[in-house]
C-alpha cells in the first residue's frame, strides 16, 4: 500500500487534472468561453428548472387516429359489399375492429376475398355463420404507431421552429409520448394551442340538395356528413351553424407547399399554394363545380364555404373567414408545418420563469458552497493534517463530478445541486471510515505503517458495500424518476463513483507522499 508504481501516480494525477480541466469551463461566462479552444467549451447543461423554460409531456392519441381510420374504412366496406351485391347487417365499429354480419352465409368466402382488397394491413375474419370482423394486424398497428410518433415529432419540431423558440428539444419518451423542452419560454400557451391542433385541412363540396335541419332529422344522404362551423357558438358570422358536406375530399392539405397570412380588403386572410398534383386536382374540381359552394374544413370544422365563381387553375388560393391577425398567422403556420397524423394530448406541463430559475441557482450554489465549507472545516477540526488530505480529495471530487457532468452532457437540475451537496457530505464518509480504522489499529498497538496499511485495506470492503447500496438507490431513481428527479439521480450516482476514486486513491497518494517526504514518527490523529 505504501508504494505506488509510477504509472499509478501518473494515472491518478492525470485523472485529477482532467477533472479540473473539464470542470473549469463552468466558471466562465459564455463570452469568456469564446476565447477557449472549442474542445474546452463544454459546460454543464442547466435544467429548465434552473434556466427557466417550459417542459411539456405530450401523448400521441394513437387510438383516436385508429378510430378515425376505422370510420373511413367502414365506408369502403359498405361500398364494396354493395357493389358485389352481398347482403349484410350490423355494420359498425366495435372497439378496435369493424364488425358486421354477412346475410348470405354461402357467400362468406367471396365477401372475405373482396374485403381483403380494401386494406392490405387489415385482417378479415368471417365465421361460417356470417359474423365477421376486420381489424388491423398487430404488426400494422405497431408500425403505424411508430410512424405516427416519428411523424408527430417532425411536425411538432416544425411548428415550434416556426414560433422562433430557440434550442427546443423534442424527443420520444416511452411508447407513444413526446417530451418537449422549451428553454426560456415562460408562457407556453401559444405553443400549447399550436400543438393542440391536428391541422388537417380539406376542401369538400357543400351538398346543396338538403338542409341541415332535414339532415339532422335522419335524412342524411350516404356519403354526406354534417360539420359545425368554427364560428358556431361564438355568435357571429351571421348564424353560420353547420353545413352538410360531401365526405369525399376534393383536395387535402397535404398537397400544400406554402401558406402565408396576408390581407384582402383589409381583412386578415391566409393565402396558400398547392404542389402540381394538388393544383391540378383543385383546378379540375373547381372547373366542374362552378357556381357551387365548397367548404374549407380544418379539423372537422368549417372555416368558410365560399362559392366557386370561376375555375381556380393557378394552383393557389385564399382562405378567408373571421380571422384575427393572430389566428390567420397561426393557421398559416400550421398549414406550412403540416397536419399531425393523430391528435395530441398534453399530459404534463412544468414551466419555470427565469426569475425563479435564477433564484434557485443562487440558493443552490450558496447552500452547496456553505455545505462544502462546513464539511471542510469539520474534517480539519477532527483530523488535522489528515483532514486537509481528505478535503483536498473532496475538492478534486467536486471537480471530477462537474467534469463528468459536462463530459456526459448531463443536465443539472435543482435536485441535482442538492445531490452534489449531499454527496459532498457523504463522500468524506470513506475518509472517516479509513481514519477511524487507522486510529483503532494504532490503539491496538500496531506500528505506524502497519496501522495505515490495515486502515486502508480493512475499510475498503465496508466502503465498497456502502457505496454500492447508495448506487442501487441512484440507479433505481434514474430508471423510474422523471424530469428534475432524474437530475438528482445522475449527480448522486456520479458522485458515488467519483468519491470512491478520490476518497481512497487521492487521499492515499497524499498520505504516501507525505510519509516519504517527512518520514514522520507518529500519525497526527
Amino acid at each position: 500500500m505504501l508504494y505506488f508504481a509510477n504509472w499509478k501516480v501518473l494515472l491518478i494525477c492525470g485523472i485529477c487534472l482532467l477533472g479540473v480541466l473539464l470542470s473549469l469551463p463552468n466558471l466562465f461566462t459564455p463570452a469568456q468561453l469564446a476565447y477557449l479552444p472549442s474542445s474546452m467549451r463544454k459546460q454543464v447543461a442547466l435544467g429548465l428548472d434552473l434556466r427557466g423554460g417550459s417542459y411539456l409531456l405530450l401523448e400521441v392519441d394513437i387510438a383516436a387516429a385508429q378510430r378515425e381510420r376505422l370510420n373511413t374504412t367502414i365506408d369502403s366496406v359498405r361500398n364494396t359489399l354493395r357493389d358485389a351485391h352481398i347482403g349484410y347487417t350490423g355494420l359498425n365499429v366495435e372497439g378496435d375492429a369493424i364488425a358486421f354480419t354477412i346475410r348470405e352465409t354461402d357467400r362468406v368466402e367471396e365477401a372475405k376475398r373482396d374485403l381483403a382488397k380494401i386494406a392490405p394491413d387489415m385482417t378479415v375474419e368471417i365465421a361460417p355463420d356470417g359474423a365477421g370482423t376486420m381489424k388491423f394486424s398487430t404488426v400494422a398497428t405497431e408500425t403505424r404507431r411508430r410512424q405516427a410518433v416519428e411523424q408527430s415529432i417532425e411536425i411538432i419540431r416544425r411548428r415550434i421552429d416556426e414560433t422562433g423558440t430557440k434550442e427546443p428539444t423534442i424527443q420520444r419518451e416511452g411508447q407513444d409520448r413526446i417530451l418537449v423542452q422549451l428553454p426560456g419560454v415562460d408562457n407556453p400557451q401559444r405553443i400549447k394551442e399550436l400543438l393542440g391542433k391536428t391541422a388537417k385541412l380539406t376542401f369538400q363540396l357543400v351538398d346543396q340538395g338538403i338542409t341541415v335541419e332535414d339532415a339532422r332529422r335522419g335524412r342524411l344522404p350516404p356519403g354526406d356528413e354534417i360539420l359545425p362551423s368554427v364560428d358556431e357558438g361564438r355568435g357571429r358570422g351571421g348564424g353560420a351553424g353547420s353545413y352538410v358536406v360531401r365526405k369525399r375530399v376534393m383536395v387535402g392539405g397535404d398537397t400544400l407547399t406554402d401558406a402565408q397570412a396576408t390581407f384582402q380588403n383589409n381583412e386578415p386572410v391566409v393565402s396558400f399554394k398547392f404542389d402540381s398534383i394538388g393544383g391540378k386536382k383543385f383546378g379540375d374540381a373547381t372547373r366542374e363545380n362552378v357556381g357551387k359552394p365548397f367548404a374549407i374544413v380544418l379539423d372537422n370544422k368549417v372555416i368558410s364555404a365560399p362559392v366557386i365563381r370561376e375555375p381556380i387553375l393557378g394552383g393557389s388560393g385564399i382562405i378567408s373567414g373571421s380571422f384575427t391577425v393572430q389566428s390567420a398567422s397561426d393557421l398559416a403556420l400550421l398549414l406550412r408545418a403540416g397536419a399531425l397524423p393523430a391528435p395530441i394530448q398534453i399530459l404534463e406541463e412544468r414551466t419555470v420563469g427565469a426569475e425563479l430559475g435564477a433564484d434557485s441557482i443562487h440558493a443552490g450554489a450558496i447552500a452547496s458552497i456553505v455545505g462544502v465549507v462546513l464539511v471542510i472545516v469539520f474534517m480539519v477540526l477532527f483530523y488535522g493534517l489528515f483532514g486537509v488530505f481528505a478535503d483536498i480529495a473532496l475538492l478534486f471530487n467536486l471537480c471530477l463530478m462537474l467534469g463528468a457532468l459536462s463530459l456526459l452532457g448531463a443536465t443539472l437540475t435543482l435536485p441535482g445541486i442538492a445531490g452534489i451537496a449531499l454527496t459532498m457530505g457523504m463522500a468524506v464518509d470513506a475518509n472517516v471510515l479509513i481514519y477511524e480504522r487507522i486510529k483503532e489499529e494504532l490503539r491496538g498497538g500496531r506500528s505506524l505503517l502497519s496501522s495505515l496499511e490495515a486502515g486502508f485495506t480493512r475499510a475498503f470492503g465496508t466502503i465498497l458495500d456502502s457505496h454500492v447500496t447508495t448506487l442501487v438507490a441512484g440507479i433505481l431513481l434514474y430508471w423510474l424518476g422523471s424530469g428534475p428527479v432524474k437530475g438528482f439521480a445522475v449527480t448522486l450516482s456520479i458522485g458515488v463513483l467519483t468519491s470512491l476514486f478520490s476518497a481512497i486513491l487521492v487521499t492515499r497518494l497524499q498520505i504516501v507522499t507525505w510519509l516519504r517526504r517527512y518520514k514522520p514518527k507518529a500519525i497526527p490523529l
Partner: protein
Amino acid sequence: MRPLIVIRRVPKIDFMRWHLFGFAFSGLLSIATVVLLLTAGLNYGIDFTGGTLIEVRVTNGAADLAAMRSKLDALHVGEPSLQAYVDKTTAECATSPPACVLIRLPEQPGGDAAQQKVVQQVRGALGPDVEYRRTEVVGPSVGSELIRAGVLATVLALGAIMVYVWFRFEWQFGIGATLATLHDVITTVGLFAIFQLEFNLTTLAAILTIAGYSINDTVVIYDRVRESMRKYRTMPFRDLINLALNETLSRTILTVATTALAVLALLFLGGEVLRGFSIAMLWGIVIGTYSSLFIAAPLLYYVQPNRRAIARTADSDDAPAERASR
C-alpha cells in the same frame, strides 16, 4: 498539524440494554404512521394527485389573498388553496408582508385536456400585475403512473438492498438490514403525514436516498459485527453487538455530522423548492442512524447468524492484508 478535537477512548455504552425500548418506540412510530396514513393520509403534491400549481409574485406591493381567492372562486375550477410565503433565499420573495403566493388547484374533471385550460383562466383572472414564477400542470394519467413508479422504486430498492446484504453477509443480516431500512422509510412517510408536509417527487427521491444512506450505516456496523464474530469466537453475542456498536460509534457520529451539515445548509439556504427534500433527508439521517444502532444491530441478536459459517469465510475476505502485515 494535529486535530483540535480528538475522540480517544472507545466508549462502553450498553446499547443492548436499550434495544427493547428501541423496538417499542419504533413499533409505535410505525403503527402510528400506518394509522395516520389510513386516517389523515398524505398531503400529496400535484405530482401524484394531478392538478395545477402556480407560483406567482404580485408586482405592486403585498399580495391580497382574499382578493385573489375571490377572483379564483369566480372561475369555478374547484377549491383553490392559496399560500403566501416569504423566502429569504430569493431576490424577489424576501419582502414581508409577502408578495409571493403558491396557488394550488385540484384536478379538473374531464381528463388530461381539461387541466390545460385552467392555467389560461387563472392568468386571465389575476390580471396584469402578477409575475408567474412557476406553473405545473399534471394530468390524471401521469399522476397515477408516478405513484406506481414511486412505489415500485421503493419496493425494488428495499429488495435490491436485501439481496445485496444477503449476498455479502448471511441471510440473517439481510433481514435485519431490510427491516431497519423499511422502518426508516415508513417513519419518514409518517413524518410527512403528521405535519401534512407536501409529499411530492422530490420527497420520493429523498426517501430512496435515505434508504441508501441508512443501509450504508447498517452495513458498516454489520461489517464490524461479522469481523468480531471471527475474532472473538466465544464472546456472548450480546456483548459482541455492543462492542461492534461502540467501536464504530465515533465513525457513526462523524458521518452523521458531515452529512447533516450538508443537509442543514440545503435546508436553510437552498430555498423553498428544496425544503421538503431537505426536511426528509434530515429526518432520514437521524432516524437512519438511530435504526442502525437500536434496530438493525439488536435484531441480529434474535436471528443469530451462524458463527461457524462466518468463521469459515474469514480467510477469503480480509486475510491477505492481515497476513502480510503480521
